[in-house]
């Protein structure tokens, strides 16, 4: 082996000898200015985070915008504390860890002074421009979601889709709420576009929220995404009181007929049918619905397992990492620590509550007009937050009657809610086009 290396060196020497004439000595260090050791330590200290926190500079530019001195020091520390709190919630409490961990880590990185990791040349900024600005990442996630979702329960009982429609009241009601806040509070001022982006939190669907927010209100993206995922994780706490308040004990005990079996052909045709409707009525929703339908179609076709398995495994995992980190880059203090964030957090909760109520009330209305009774507890599953909300419906149902399994019935409105939110997203995008 040593001989081999010697030979390699020999060959190299030969090569270098032959072209040594190219190596004209010149002063290559013109940019560099000599410094004494103490100057070096001094300028190293100036580039520490400690110094950046302790002596923020007026007019400092970070991520392409001027950052106030508060946001350079205390603001960043508050943001880091918030990211640590998100880590805690994700790990110890199990809050949507697959997305909150990357988002919070991205947020932590974005608040590091000097490094400018979320700036246009930092790696978070590059990921953001590559996949979030273009809308690519949320759509790829949606493909994977499509490849993982079984629309069977919806096909077995299509009318439960209406519950998934009513739950979209969370979206549009929240827009009104945001407008209200802007009109009547002194310090929060959302534009209509921003209000719409906030409302979409009520869709309880991460990729939809991110897709819409990246188009209508990119600066609020971080807060919207964090709110959406946090409240999705909080669904087991937010929904039950509302569900119980709006239903009677008898209603909660309604038993539903067993779902019929759904044929393979129906499942294959479903994504195409939804797409056709979407093309005819609302082309602006077709990127989102199309991605979902593509994933589901590949899965149900059954002839391209390689692709559907990739979509629901390596592809969605890779994109989740990139998307989470990119979204986190919008948690930089100068973007997050604005009064609007407080509004977003309050409105996000309102959105989930209204969506839940919408679904439950719709179920009660349907029961007035139909002899096939629907247990109103499955109405709350219409907000999406798949499959958490459906599990909550099931759990609440079993509290009243341990033998009443609502899970599969709740999956119908649950997946319909995904489609409903994508349609709502299409409407909002269409309004502001």
């Amino acid at each position, binding site marked *: 082996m040593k001989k081999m290396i010697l030979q390699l060196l020999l060959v190299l020497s030969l090569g270098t000898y032959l072209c040594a004439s190219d190596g004209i000595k010149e002063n290559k260090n013109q940019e560099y200015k000599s410094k004494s050791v103490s100057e070096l330590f001094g300028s190293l200290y100036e580039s520490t985070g400690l110094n950046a926190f302790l002596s923020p500079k007026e007019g400092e530019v970070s991520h392409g915008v001027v950052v106030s001195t508060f946001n350079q020091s205390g603001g960043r520390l508050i943001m880091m504390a918030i990211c640590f709190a998100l880590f805690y919630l994700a790990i110890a409490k199990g809050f949507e860890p697959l997305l909150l961990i990357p988002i919070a880590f991205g947020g932590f990185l974005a608040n590091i002074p000097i490094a400018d990791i979320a700036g246009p040349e930092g790696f978070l900024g590059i990921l953001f421009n590559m996949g979030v600005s273009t809308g690519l990442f949320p759509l790829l996630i949606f493909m994977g979601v499509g490849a993982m979702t079984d629309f069977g329960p919806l096909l077995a009982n299509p009318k439960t889709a209406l519950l998934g429609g009513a739950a979209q009241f969370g979206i549009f009601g929240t827009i*009104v709420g945001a407008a209200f806040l802007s*009109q009547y509070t002194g310090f929060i001022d959302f534009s209509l576009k921003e209000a719409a982006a906030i409302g979409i939190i009520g869709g309880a669907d991460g990729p939809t929220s991110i897709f819409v927010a990246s188009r209508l209100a990119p600066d609020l993206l971080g807060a919207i995404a964090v709110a959406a995922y946090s409240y999705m994780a909080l669904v087991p706490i937010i929904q039950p009181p509302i569900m119980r308040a709006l239903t009677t004990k008898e209603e909660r005990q309604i038993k539903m007929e067993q779902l019929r079996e759904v044929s393979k052909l129906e499942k294959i045709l479903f994504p195409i049918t939804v797409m056709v409707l979407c093309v005819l009525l609302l082309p602006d929703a077709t990127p989102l619905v199309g991605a979902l339908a593509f994933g589901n179609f590949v899965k149900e076709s059954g002839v391209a397992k390689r692709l559907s398995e990739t979509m629901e495994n390596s592809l969605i995992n890779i994109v989740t990492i990139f998307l989470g980190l990119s979204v986190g880059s919008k948690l930089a203090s100068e973007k997050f620590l604005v009064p609007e964030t407080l509004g977003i957090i309050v409105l996000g909760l309102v959105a989930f509550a209204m969506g839940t109520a919408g679904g439950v009330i719709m179920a009660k209305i349907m029961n007035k007009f139909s002899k096939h009774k629907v247990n109103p507890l499955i109405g709350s599953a219409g907000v999406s937050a798949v499959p958490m909300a459906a599990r909550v419906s099931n759990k609440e149902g079993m509290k009243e009657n341990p033998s009443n399994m609502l899970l599969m019935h709740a999956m119908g409105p649950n997946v319909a809610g995904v489609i409903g939110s994508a349609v709502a997203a299409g409407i909002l995008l269409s309004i502001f086009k």
Partner: protein
Amino acid sequence: MEINLIAESVKFLILGMSTVFMFLVLMVFVLELQSKIIMKFFPPKKEEDSTACNSTSELSRNGNLAVVAAIAASLKSYKQSK
């Protein structure tokens, strides 16, 4: 011109909810129609055998044929020993 945000957003609410419902009602209608057509003209065949097949194919997809073979061999040698 100053815009009345609340008025506008209420309009969005009306537009949005009615469109979402229009979409979903139409979808429910089409799906039920479609289901009836399929049930009538393309009734699903019994697929018990295919599911049995499926679990084997799932094993083989994971490249575990060697394991399956080992199990099979172990079972077989056991049976022979009886």
